[in-house]
């Protein structure tokens, strides 16, 4: 099997499996007051401290969640509610047009069902939000912006945003700025304090940790209204029994990902460049989407003209090569990617695209297998589309 879909999820690292396996052998709820509870609490707090240290945060800035989607919902909804309660004039939610659905959908839901006004920040043809675009959007009325959310790096096309500049602008106006850094941790240098953001989403399973553990890093000056109410865990911001074994594994994954980041990123970038070169050699008229320079090292998002991405995916899958159309599915049907559309692509171009994403288990053999399989697959997929649209 040639797995080229690490941006969807990546293999759990053996060190993480070992830590979680050991922790699953222990009994105890981290909120209990007895010995077993104290032991679990210690494991949770050590995980929190490890994650904080690796990402330039303080332990009390780490709010554990069940993953990226929950952290994004907490940031967008919770920060909107807090800001709107403090001043009902604050209604605007500014989000980039290329956000993951975990940000876009809560923001749109808030506009449809709550007092929010949804506003998208346009991107350029490589998917980048320009700082002056954010400034102009705020300047239209600095007093009515409730919250801003721009992702650190795009999950589909891999474009890395100028987060420090964007966060600095938001800070000038004292507006909380959230970033979804799910794809950035382990690939880009992520330092929470230095970035200037107020809230940062991350998750375990993109970096070799378990699915089901994530975090929202929150500066002490923002206080979102909870989405989950209950036992009051996590600074009363996120109730729910702490999942001690997952958090231990999560922390191990974060530590390793950050420690090894530079070496890992440069290895992936070499493989990725080779992937693009081999695919281009086989199919000369491809285009690489996203920022050619400022992009995630493991991401290659490619449009294959006159092809349908889902047909290509199926043909590659039949050859044991696994990749993604990169866009959201509705009942299993790939929709034209909102990210590519926001970058100015036509729906046909958007549908002709595949995302190949690399991770720590990727090898040169994987790239070679794709290089060999891609030309015949494209030829067939093109013949199928010609049948469909003569």
């Amino acid at each position, binding site marked *: 099997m040639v797995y080229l879909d690490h941006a969807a999820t990546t293999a759990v690292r053996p060190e993480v499996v070992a830590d979680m396996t050991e922790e699953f052998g222990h009994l105890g709820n981290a909120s209990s007051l007895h010995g077993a509870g104290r032991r679990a609490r210690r494991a949770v707090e050590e995980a929190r401290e490890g994650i904080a240290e690796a990402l330039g945060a303080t332990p009390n800035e780490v709010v554990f969640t069940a993953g990226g989607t929950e952290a994004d919902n907490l940031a967008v909804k919770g920060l909107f509610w807090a800001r709107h309660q403090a001043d009902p004039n604050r209604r605007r939610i500014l989000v980039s047009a290329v956000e993951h659905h975990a940000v876009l959908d809560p923001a749109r839901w808030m506009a449809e069902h709550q007092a929010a006004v949804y506003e998208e920040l346009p991107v350029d043809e490589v998917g980048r939000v320009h700082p002056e675009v954010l400034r102009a959007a705020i300047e239209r009325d600095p007093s009515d912006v409730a919250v801003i959310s721009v992702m650190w790096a795009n999950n589909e096309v891999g474009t890395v945003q100028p987060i420090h500049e964007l966060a600095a602008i938001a800070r000038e106006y004292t507006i909380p700025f959230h970033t979804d850094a799910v794809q950035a941790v382990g690939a880009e240098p992520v330092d929470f304090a230095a970035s200037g953001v107020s809230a940062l989403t991350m998750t375990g399973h993109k970096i070799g940790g378990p699915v089901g553990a994530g975090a929202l890093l929150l500066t002490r000056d923002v206080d979102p209204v909870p989405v989950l109410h209950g036992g009051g865990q996590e600074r009363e911001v996120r109730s729910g029994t702490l999942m001690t074994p997952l958090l231990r594994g999560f922390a191990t994954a974060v530590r390793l990902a950050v420690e090894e980041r530079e070496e890992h990123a440069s290895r992936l970038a070499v493989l990725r460049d080779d992937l693009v070169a081999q695919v281009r050699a086989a199919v000369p008229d491809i285009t690489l989407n996203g920022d050619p320079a400022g992009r995630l090292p493991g991401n290659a998002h490619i449009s294959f003209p006159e092809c349908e991405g*889902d*047909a290509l995916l*199926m*043909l590659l*899958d*039949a050859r044991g090569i696994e990749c993604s159309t990169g866009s959201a599915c*509705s*009942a*299993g*049907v*790939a929709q034209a990617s909102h990210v590519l559309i926001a970058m100015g692509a036509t729906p046909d171009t958007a549908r002709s695209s595949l995302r190949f994403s690399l991770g720590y288990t990727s090898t040169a053999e994987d790239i070679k297998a794709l290089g060999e399989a891609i030309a015949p697959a494209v030829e*067939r*997929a093109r*013949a*199928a589309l*010609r*049948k*469909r649209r003569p």
Partner: protein
Amino acid sequence: MSLRVLAAMSGGVDSAVAAARAAEAGHDVTGVHLALSKNPKSYRTGARGCCTVEDSRDARRAADAIGIPFYVWDMAEEFDREVVQDFVAEYAAGRTPNPCLRCNEKIKFEAVLDRAVALGFDAVCTGHHVRMVDGRLRRSVDIDKDQSYVLGVLTREQLAHAMFPLGDCTKAEVRAEADRRGLSVADKPDSHDICFIADGDTAGFLNQRLGDEPGPIKDESGEVLGTHNGAHTFTVGQRKGLNLGGAVERRYVLSIEPVNNTVTVGPREALQVDEIIGSRPVWSGCDPITEPMACEVQLRAHGEVYPCQAWQHDDELVVRLDEPATGVATGQAAVLYDGDMVLGSATIARTARREEAAPAH
């Protein structure tokens, strides 16, 4: 010989067992669910439909259980153009279309088959209750579930790439087999009605698209007997829904004239026809017949079979029934049979009583 087979999986029990049988026969099978609606409803209403999100999930679970790859193909654009719009246009023209037949002809064994062949597949497999013997279509052994009529429109070339693994058993046997194979769709109710009219209200669906302008209901002499809310909601042979009040004798719809929005009614005897002219003749079971040949014809789904003489004259099919039939609607298919074998078909364009009609040749 092992073939690369694309199994169209609706989420129902028939297509699941068909895919399982094809895989068990040693073919390299890939399951595909066809998404036919741009905005699929999340939950099916009753037993209807084959294109809800839930049906897609059922199909996926069946593919998992069989152990074959599974994908969803978006055919919504083609389905809307070839089936839904055609359905509306046919009613607007005063005919009575059969959308299931149209879907088999234009979607499953054209759009899907063409795409499949281009992508390297040899055949499309479905859960229809029909048999294929030497490339010819025959009725299922389960005569109540036989679907040869809605496939009678397929050409020999289309049939050459078709696989129907269920024709040799009954529906009850298919359900029992699904249960034995651990397919959770074993007890799923049969789908019926028209899948793209979720609430089953065909008249409402047509009114929404064609308007509900009132028009006259007349008898054969031209006398106005009542009014209706749109000629397109009627079918030749229909008796219910005329609301003619105190009419002494029962009246039936004889014809529909969309141009002047008129529905003509009359007694049952006036419905009798014994000559049928069909357009677009297709001969899948034999070479084109140009001299009168004794065979049988079926004029609607689950309808009666009539002994007849049939032949092709120019580009039309002529069918002369031995005894008159009633309620023959234009737009339906006339499917010719020799015993249980499909010979060919055509779309009913006109009907006549022989003594009144000019001879066809």
